[in-house]
């Protein structure tokens, strides 16, 4: 079955620390990969996405993610977090060659950045 796993449920970091959030999906084939962020009281917003090409993807607010096909992974990274990065982060995967199908989400990671 299609599934997405996020390894860290709750992460607490100090400002300027580096961040890496893990995301793995259940099996291969053609996938589109996404990281969404939800700041307190706000919409789910797209941080970055991977469709094809360079497996290292850069997104907004200094975030990046690396697609490693052999590991079925799409980990999110940021070299230096800020207090304003406190939010919930969701990895999502769309299987198949179409671009309009459903997203399968991981369980989310709550990031708390201490000032």
């Amino acid at each position, binding site marked *: 079955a299609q599934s997405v796993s996020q390894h860290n449920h709750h992460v607490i970091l100090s400002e300027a620390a580096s961040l890496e959030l893990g995301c793995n999906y259940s099996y291969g084939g053609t996938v*589109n990969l*996404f990281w*969404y962020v939800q700041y307190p009281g*706000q*919409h*789910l*917003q*797209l941080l970055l*996405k991977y*469709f094809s090409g360079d497996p290292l993807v850069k997104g907004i607010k200094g975030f990046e993610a690396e697609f490693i096909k052999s590991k079925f992974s799409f980990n999110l990274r940021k070299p230096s977090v800020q207090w304003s990065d406190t939010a919930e982060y*969701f990895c*999502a995967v769309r299987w198949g060659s179409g*671009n*309009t*199908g*459903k*997203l*399968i*989400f*991981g*369980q*989310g990671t709550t990031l708390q950045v201490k000032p």
Partner: protein
Amino acid sequence: EPEVTQTPSHQVTQMGQEVILRCVPISNHLYFYWYRQILGQKVEFLVSFYNNEISEKSEIFDDQFSVERPDGSNFTLKIRSTKLEDSAMYFCASSTGGSPYEQYFGPGTRLTVT
């Protein structure tokens, strides 16, 4: 910047009652989705809708659920007879179907069934 809107932000209803959750997708979008998130659990896909018909639905989306695009702007999710386990945050999303292929999410409606 255009955004997806949802009303109400919070709905409280009694078990067995019908509820309608409303969404206004972004105006030039063609694909519409409902997801839900039960407290403490994953965001789960419910249904997708294109060209006035359901294109895909999950196992959760049983006969108690229906979707409709009653006019050119609204997209609704109806739950005919709510159960306690329907309590969740319901998110609407929309996409153009073309580049940039992302789904834009609304702020959600928190449904509480008592």
